[in-house]
């Protein structure tokens, strides 16, 4: 493909389009005054920033509220007793020696004493 021809075709096309290009000075001054319509992203940014701020302050509030609760829990933990703690205490007071030592199996009568076994 002929580069020269392509160059002239591009020249014709783009030159035709930019014949009525907007005036530079007008555009420059407009930009200087910031008098330009822009795609509006700023409100979205504002909303995003505001929601981040709200979420952050909420987290801080929650964290601050949690602190005394932790202290209370610690106190409660120290005072906490097992529901069966009472039973354990009772057991420690009982004197097991008498009853357990004297206990005999109900079938011990049926058992043959070892001295008789040996003689047989």
């Amino acid at each position: 493909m002929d580069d020269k021809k392509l160059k002239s075709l591009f020249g014709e096309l783009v030159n035709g389009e930019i014949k009525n290009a907007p005036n530079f000075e007008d555009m420059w001054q407009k930009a200087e005054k910031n008098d330009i319509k822009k795609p509006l992203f700023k409100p979205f940014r504002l909303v995003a920033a505001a929601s981040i701020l709200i979420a952050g302050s909420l987290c801080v509030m929650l964290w601050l509220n949690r602190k005394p609760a932790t202290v209370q829990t610690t106190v409660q933990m120290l005072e906490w007793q097992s529901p069966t703690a009472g039973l354990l205490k009772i057991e420690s007071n009982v004197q097991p020696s008498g009853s357990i030592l004297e206990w005999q199996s109900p079938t011990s009568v049926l058992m043959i004493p070892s001295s008789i076994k040996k003689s047989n």
Partner: protein
Amino acid sequence: MDLSFYKKELEQIHAESFGWALRCCNYQREQAKDVLQSAYLKIFEGKARFNHKSSFKTWWFSVIRHTAIDWKTKLTKVSSREQAMEAGSPSVDMNTSLDEIIKNEHQLVFKKALGQLSQRQQEVLQLVFYHDMTIEKAATAMGVSIGSARTHYKRGKQNLGKILQNSDLKI
């Protein structure tokens, strides 16, 4: 770098910048105007600063391209490339001479042929054949690698040649 430097440099390439903005906006005049205006605003806001890594024109063209991309994503997208190309077709008034009509006709055919290429192919071809950039500089302005720009250039030229061969405009 003060504003007077930017003003001096930009004034020299204003028309070309508009031509590039048009390309980036699929030849939609109003959008191209807004894009170029926003690009100028970036200078005042300090969002666009020339860092001497490339030539001023290459840097400025990449600013325009990025601004156009921002606008494209935020605003209504063009339904089809062909529609856009037709919207910007040259007008012919009653006083136009026969030569002018033929010239306009050629432009229209060429524009339609260009419209059948990919965006990147159109961009690299315009940068090289109209804005006199090398492929390396075009790659910088387009924000792609040199290899990629070369491929777009080669394929773009091949495709354009094929399309124009089948049209009334033989090259």
